[in-house]
């Protein structure tokens, strides 16, 4: 046996190299349904269970407040009182959220509007009875879409919809808001290393327990089993909007759920998906929807005007545009994509 020592040495070296401990042996994790999606909260600190529960409680609380399909939610009340002139008292955090959504509408005119709810209902995206609405219905509902007709009091303590039939849907900001508040809850409970997956909206806190950056893959919008690439980062949120998430087909045409507030039809800007990376979860969530509607050029122009987010844009032309502030390992070449870097 002694004679084969060198060979054994070589092989045992390789064997010991594969016995490295995997991340995730400590900490806590929970998967649950909320906000019409599936969410996973992982806290990788020791005794992370309390932080996980705090995050979940916060998300459940926000769902109570923000879901317009729950009759008792504040948003449902706001919608029922639309046009009757009464201002509804709201929590200041909700007032601030509504005001934030309006600021996005103002920055990106025609690309983002939380009062799109009547049009979404006409398409049946709310009740999962998806169909193409007839033109009259569409025109009637589109006339009700106007974020300026949502009045939020100066002190954020009350809100009012000015026209009857108007309705607010916070689908484009709710997950981001929830991620922001859940991350705060985890930090308050002492968590330092966490990963929140709120239906594909990924928020990472700190670094991995071994000190490495988190690695988050971006889905290939044309085959969601595959990835366009992997972003390495810490303390960031990645929010992706794409037409592949919710859609239906009618007469051979695919209709997806991200509606253009100008036309009332699914947005057709030449982009298949938009991923926004930011340290502000709320901003990332809202912008992924708004910039998906805006298109590549407008998205890059807007990116150049600010410094608090980065972008990964996947176009139907097969070009993946990544802004220069990201550490992105591109993996789409074998699936026919090309990658370009956008500079300021």
């Amino acid at each position, binding site marked *: 046996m002694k004679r084969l020592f060198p*060979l054994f040495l070589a*092989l045992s070296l390789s064997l010991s190299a594969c016995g490295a401990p995997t991340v995730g042996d400590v900490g806590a994790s929970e998967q649950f349904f909320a906000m019409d999606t599936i969410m996973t909260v992982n806290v990788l600190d020791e005794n992370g269970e309390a932080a996980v529960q705090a995050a979940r409680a916060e998300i459940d609380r926000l769902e109570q407040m923000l879901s317009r399909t729950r009759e008792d939610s504040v948003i449902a009340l706001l919608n029922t009182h639309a046009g009757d002139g009464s201002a509804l008292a709201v929590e200041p955090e909700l007032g601030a959220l509504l005001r934030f959504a309006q600021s996005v509408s103002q920055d990106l005119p025609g690309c983002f509007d939380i009062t799109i709810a009547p049009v979404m209902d006409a398409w049946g995206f709310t009740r999962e009875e998806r169909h193409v609405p007839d033109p009259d219905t569409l025109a009637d509902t589109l006339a009700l879409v106007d974020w300026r007709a949502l009045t939020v009091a100066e002190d954020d303590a009350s809100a009012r919809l000015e026209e009857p039939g108007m309705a607010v849907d916070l689908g484009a900001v709710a997950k981001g808001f929830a991620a922001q508040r859940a991350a705060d809850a985890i930090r308050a409970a002492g968590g330092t290393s966490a990963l929140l*997956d709120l239906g594909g909206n990924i928020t990472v806190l700190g670094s991995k327990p071994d000190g490495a950056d988190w690695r*988050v*893959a971006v*889905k290939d919008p044309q085959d969601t089993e595959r990835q366009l690439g992997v972003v390495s980062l810490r303390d960031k949120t990645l929010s992706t909007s794409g037409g*592949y998430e919710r859609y239906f087909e009618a007469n051979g045409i695919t209709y997806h759920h991200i509606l253009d507030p100008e036309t009332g039809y699914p947005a057709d800007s030449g982009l298949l998906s938009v991923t926004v990376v930011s340290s502000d979860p709320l901003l990332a969530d809202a912008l992924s929807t708004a910039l998906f509607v805006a298109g590549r050029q407008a998205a890059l122009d807007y990116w150049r005007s600010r410094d608090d987010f980065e972008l990964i844009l996947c176009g139907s032309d097969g070009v993946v545009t990544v802004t220069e502030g990201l550490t992105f390992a591109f993996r789409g070449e074998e699936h026919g994509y090309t990658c370009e870097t956008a500079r300021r």
Partner: protein
Amino acid sequence: MHFGGRSMDTPVKRPAAERRRPTIGDGVLALLVILCAAALFFGLRPASGNLLTARIVLDGVLVAEYDLNALTSPVELAVDGGAYPMVIQAEPGRIRVLESGCPSQDCVHTGWADRAGDQIICLPNRLVISLSGAEAQTDFDAVTG
């Protein structure tokens, strides 16, 4: 210049170098290489070949658990506890939602799940089928989209 070593100046004596036929030692060595290869092969994938567990969770409650690789014939499971009735089909090594009463049919369109880490999700029914076993073969922590 000094090139060192007696071996430099005398013909080198290497027993192995003088033989022309394979020896029993060669056979033992070959056997050891095979053993190492086999040990590595089984050591590396303790689970992927042997264990692939599908957990079916309906709104947070575990409904059923299958060891997919231990199945010998297809199994169908009707899940009626959710908002819509659905039928889940498990075969050796893979599982899918065969039919569902839910409006979106996303879970049916997902098709077969056959790798550790795969998930099939039916949002309207609040149902998750998740596969675990072998370490998921990915080099990232999460997927956005």
